[in-house]
């Protein structure tokens, strides 16, 4: 981390935004170290007033945060394309978990092969090509392949999947099977790909002034980090509020731990923290608050939808077929649902759109 901070200071000089981005990362890493040490200590010297399962869950959550942080530090140090590839791998893995949990028939095999090995890589390749490739191909600067990757899956993959399934010749539950494969592709790949697509935007403030150094990806990586931080905080706050004050469960048959109190408290706290971190983003104080609120609500929606799918399948977690070990998809469900919203709000209000 010290190296990254040094790099930021030496290369950016007058651009204060960059230093602020690194500050944000520094603060979060510091908090993580504290939380990690606390979790380890609690595990080693158990306090009998605390439930060991709770401590285990806390430690697990911290591990997930480390993973998220590692990905984002990679974004800072390695650049745009490796970050997009990392998100592509996340998509691939969660799609794998999703389809494993979804009953498919023998006739879906070829369509599944296509979504794993053609549509998923193609989506991330289109995001990764970025502005440079667009300019060298079409001679138009400031644009990436948004016009293609925003429709590739919703239009073309959606046309292709039922066609390929139909060609396999098995009519049983045809529409249901196509819909399930399409839902997996949307949630795990299409929605999530909007998170790294943030790296392609030319960020501005709401007044239209460029934010940060236009040739650098560092400020975009900072915004991506802010987004992931807010989603994770939203999840955590909702859990904490539910545990402390939760009384009225929203939908007991979907998820017994999500309550109205948790939702309200969680969204409020997330909004507040998001607003207080406005200095790390192109947003003003109140704008950052609004963004954080939208993200928290969308994240909540994502969690509910994925819970509903899991209850329908009669499983506790995605991931391995062995129950009791949460998979990647359990961790990124809220991220998937919040990413398109955050991307589009940023795109239309805080970036140069040509």
């Amino acid at each position, binding site marked *: 981390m010290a190296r990254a901070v040094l790099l930021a200071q030496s290369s950016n000089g007058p651009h204060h935004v960059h230093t602020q981005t690194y500050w944000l990362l520094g603060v979060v890493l510091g908090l993580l170290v504290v939380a990690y040490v606390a979790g380890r200590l609690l595990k080693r010297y158990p306090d009998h007033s605390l439930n060991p399962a709770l401590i285990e869950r806390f430690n697990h959550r911290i591990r997930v945060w480390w993973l998220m942080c590692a990905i984002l530090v990679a974004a800072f140090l390695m650049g745009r394309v490796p970050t997009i590839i990392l998100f592509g791998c996340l998509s691939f893995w969660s799609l794998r978990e999703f*389809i494993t949990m979804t009953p498919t028939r023998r006739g879906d095999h070829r369509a599944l092969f296509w979504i794993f090995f053609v549509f998923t890589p193609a989506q991330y390749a289109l995001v990764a090509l970025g502005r440079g490739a667009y300019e060298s191909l079409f001679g138009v600067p400031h644009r990436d392949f948004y016009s293609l990757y925003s429709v590739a899956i919703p239009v073309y993959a959606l046309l292709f999947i039922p066609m390929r399934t139909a060609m396999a010749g098995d009519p049983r539950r045809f529409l249901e099977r196509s819909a399930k494969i399409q839902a997996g592709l949307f949630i795990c790949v299409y929605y999530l790909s909007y998170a790294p697509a943030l790296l392609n935007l030319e960020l501005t403030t709401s007044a239209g002034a460029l934010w940060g150094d236009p040739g650098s990806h560092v400020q975009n990586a900072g915004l991506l980090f802010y987004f992931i931080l807010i989603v994770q905080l939203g999840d955590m706050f909702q859990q904490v509020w539910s545990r402390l004050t939760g009384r009225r469960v929203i939908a007991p048959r979907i998820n017994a731990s999500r309550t109205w109190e948790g939702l309200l408290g969680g969204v409020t706290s997330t909004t507040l923290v998001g607003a207080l971190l406005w200095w790390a983003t192109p947003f003003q104080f109140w704008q950052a608050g609004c963004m954080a609120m939208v993200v928290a609500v969308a994240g909540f929606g994502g969690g509910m939808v994925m819970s509903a799918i899991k209850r329908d399948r009669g499983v506790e977690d995605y991931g391995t077929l062995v129950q009791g070990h949460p998979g990647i998809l359990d961790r990124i469900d809220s991220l998937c649902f919040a990413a398109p919203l955050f991307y589009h709000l940023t795109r239309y209000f805080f970036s140069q759109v040509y």
Partner: protein
Amino acid sequence: MASAEGTGGLVMAITGPMLATIAKLVSGASLRWIDCQPDTCQRVYFANHTSHLDALVLWSCLPKEIRIRTRAVAARDYWEKGPIRRHMARSFNVLLIDRKEIKVHRSPVQMMLQEIGERDSLIVFPEGSRNTKEELGEFKSGLYYLGKKRPDLELVPVYMENLNRVLPRGEVLPVPLLSCITIGPPIWLEAGEPKNDFLNRAREAVQRLRDR
């Protein structure tokens, strides 16, 4: 079966571990031992058979010390078709059995026992060929004769889940779904146990692991 020596040994040393890693990645398999511990003692792992990947994946998922002493029994007509399959079969040291021409003086069971000697373990699929139905197929008698001729071998049931979705019958390209391999407690042939009773008991041992 001299492939374990000479150039075959070299091939195994390089592509064997590589193949194991790829098989584990593609099948996303998680391995569970239920009332059974990993051990290098001589065993016969018998599993349900739904995909061509079965033998390769089960072999790959075993811990390395066990893997190098374990040989999967597979059909010669499949694994000797084309240079890639032949090379793969040699890399994971498959024990190839002729399904079509069974010679009277050299039965498959005899050949298996001769190949493993006093050291190796076996992976067998007693259903014979790949099963496309939900229920397990009837077991062939090979397992019974293995148990009868070598009563010291531990007969270990294995249930493999989801591999028929990773690579179904008739497909060439795998879809990387997650699968699960459950290894259960060993059984032995009881003294004087009739063949059909034993085969049914073995089949139930595999079936039971499905719900665990």
